[in-house]
């Protein structure tokens, strides 16, 4: 998994590419650390470049959302398609991650 962060007006846009699965947990944690170091009140996860998400990936999204709640910023997930979109719909995470 790879990601690119661009921040503007306290809004961080993160573009992902690759898969978001268990084996990417170290990178994802690093991302959360990177976000925590910046003053943001909103983060947008762009998943258009993501092919595959497993339950671990979804668990990590939930961890991100927890961090958002604690730190006081909003999390929005956009651009999901195909398998990823189905997963988000099935688990009703799409509603949850609509900040």
């Amino acid at each position, binding site marked *: 998994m790879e990601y690119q962060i661009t921040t503007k007006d306290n809004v961080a846009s993160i573009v992902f590419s690759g898969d978001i699965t268990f084996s990417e947990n170290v990178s994802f*944690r690093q991302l959360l650390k990177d976000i925590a170091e910046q003053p943001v009140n909103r983060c947008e996860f762009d998943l258009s470049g993501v092919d595959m998400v497993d*339950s671990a990936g*979804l668990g990590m999204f939930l961890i991100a959302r927890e961090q958002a709640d604690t730190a006081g910023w909003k999390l929005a997930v956009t651009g999901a398609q195909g398998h990823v979109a189905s997963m988000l719909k099935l688990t009703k995470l799409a509603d949850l991650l609509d900040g």
Partner: protein
Amino acid sequence: MDGDYDMALGDNIETAGSASELERSRESVLAGSLGRWLEMHHVMGRGYKTLDHEIDLVAGLVSTSTDDLSALFHNLIKNAKEQSTGMDEIVKAASLVNLGNETLTLPEIIGYLEEVFNEGIMNVLQLAQTAMSLVYSLDDVVIDVKKVVQQIGQIEQINKQTNLLALNAKIEATRAGDAGRGFGVVADEVRQLSQNINSVASTLRGHVDAVHNGIDQGHQQLQSIASLDMSGNLKAKDRIENMMQAMVLQNAEFQEKLAASAERSNELESDMSSVVMRFQFQDKAQQQLDGIRMTMTVLQDLGTDLATETYNETGIPPIEDDSDIIEAWVDKVIERCSLGEMRQRFVRGMLLKADHTDVTVSTKIMAADEDEDIELFGAVEASAASDKTESSKSKLDGFEDDDIELF
């Protein structure tokens, strides 16, 4: 018969010599004519009686038939209602499930299943989140473990120094000879200590490695918990949703059909009530038949009045019922009526007997008479009237609204 009298008149005129003879023959001719009129009046009286009885039978037939039909239609209405109720119950039952002490509707069942499914999904997510949190916590532990390892390394480093120092001290002590003997002992002790610390450090390292391995194992186990391929669940959820939708659609179709059936049932009821109301024609028919009978009575009375006068004036003897003359008249009537054989017998019996009580007509007899074109109710389509093979049976059994033209 008339011809005979004409000839007799002619003969009388030819052979009459005097005016009084002419006058007498004229009188006898007139008397003969009057006599024949009186006979005809008598026969017409019997005819009227026959017709009157016939009308009575018709009235009775109509009354009985309308009663029977009315009863049948009421029964039909009742059955239609029951059928409609039955269908209503079936549809209701089809969309309910009985669970002993509770009854569930289809939407409730579907809702429950969806809830259960979603709960399952939620549990999986919860598990995944917790597992990943654990992974991160373990990562932090590993950091600390690494620090511990580092520190152990430091201990070992320090120990190495200590050992070297002790070695150096031993060498100096030996060089000092006896004066350094005590110092040499201390140096030995320090070296021993150092070795002890070394083995403790080794043991520590072993334990920490074990901890590290344990954490690695935990990591692996968490991976197997947290990373589930949920595409199977996705497919299942889709399929379940399709099944639910199909069930809901089917239920809706049932309800639609039920509503349509109820409507048809109402229409049927309404139509049949209209039919039952139409049977009221029977009253009107009865009235008209009564009118006919009254008119016939009036006509007969007119004739009877005149006949009585004639009897008084001419002194002609009253007519006997069973005479041959009357029978001849009856034959004439029958000859001119287009009646079938059976009806002929019936009519003859009516005309020759004084009472009419032993003649009965059932609907079956009427129905089976294939020679008759019985037109009970007004005009029938010309095509049906002309087709003699179309028996009265079919007319009476296949009762259609078009055939009733009383008004």
